[in-house]
């Protein structure tokens, strides 16, 4: 069972009128742009802190460098929920685009033929599962072994 394609919001999209489909897409586009902008801004801030830590460290200012690194860590930690929300919105946005294509069929049509096809993030069940997966897969904090 492919989780995302069983969501009523996704299922009902193909039955909506073009006007309603466009409205739904516009709402998602706005949300996507906002999340992307916040994420980019946090990335820029984190990189600034990293550069600052590097500069301070090279001048022998270890304590100040450590503070900059801690600020970096906080920036990174605070960006995780935004990253999760961004991934969820991006998946929905791109899925709606594919679903708007003439001839689109839900992939579960093929599930009788092959049950082991990997639909990646679309196979992940609920939002909290997606969060957990992203935290594990695309969070360097976890890989770095740092618990903020």
């Amino acid at each position, binding site marked *: 069972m492919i989780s995302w394609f069983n969501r009523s919001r996704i299922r009902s999209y193909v039955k909506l009128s073009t006007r309603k489909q466009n409205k739904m897409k516009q709402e998602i586009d706005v949300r996507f742009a906002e999340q992307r902008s916040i994420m980019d801004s946090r990335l820029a801030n984190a990189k600034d802190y990293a550069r600052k830590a590097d500069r301070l460290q090279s001048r022998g200012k270890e304590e100040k460098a*450590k503070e900059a690194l801690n600020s*970096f860590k906080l920036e990174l930690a605070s960006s995780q929920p935004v990253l999760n929300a961004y991934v969820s919105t991006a998946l929905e946005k791109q899925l709606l685009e594919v679903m708007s294509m003439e001839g689109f069929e839900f992939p579960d049509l*093929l599930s009788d033929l092959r049950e082991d096809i990997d639909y990646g993030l679309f196979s992940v069940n609920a939002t909290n599962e997606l969060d957990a997966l992203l935290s594990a897969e*695309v969070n*360097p904090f976890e890989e770095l*072994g740092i618990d903020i």
Partner: protein
Amino acid sequence: MARPIYDKLAKMRKSKLDSLEYGHQQHLTRFSNAKEGKVSEVQSLDKKLTKLRKKASNELDSSVPRALGTAMEMRHVQADLLIAKSVLSVMRSNQFYHRLMMMLIQDVKAGVEYDPSRVDNLAASEFSELVEESIISTNLDGILGDLRSELDGHLGGEDR
């Protein structure tokens, strides 16, 4: 799945089959083109991630903070890569569906008996990559493991 469809197709008139085949051909072309675009996006993100990995690896030798900044960027690229690969799988399944329908219609028109092994083989070859390896298979092991050790030493363990 294919057998009932084949049986349904076998009862149709040739003109209806021609029209259906044309429709699936159009959809196949549409999804094939869209898939190509998405494959290019995946390749480009893959390349970007490899570059960032290499950059972070080099930075590790001279500056751990700089490597951390690059690792942060890697995280975003990797998320985009997972999204693109997931969307690609949906495009590929649609492309496959229309290809399968065309094959079945052409078989009916040519009087070829239904052969489930042909359908299985077609599915296996089309999806082999998506079956053999998981989309969510990339992680930041290796370089980030090194970064962790470096950072452990750098922060003296007190901030963890």
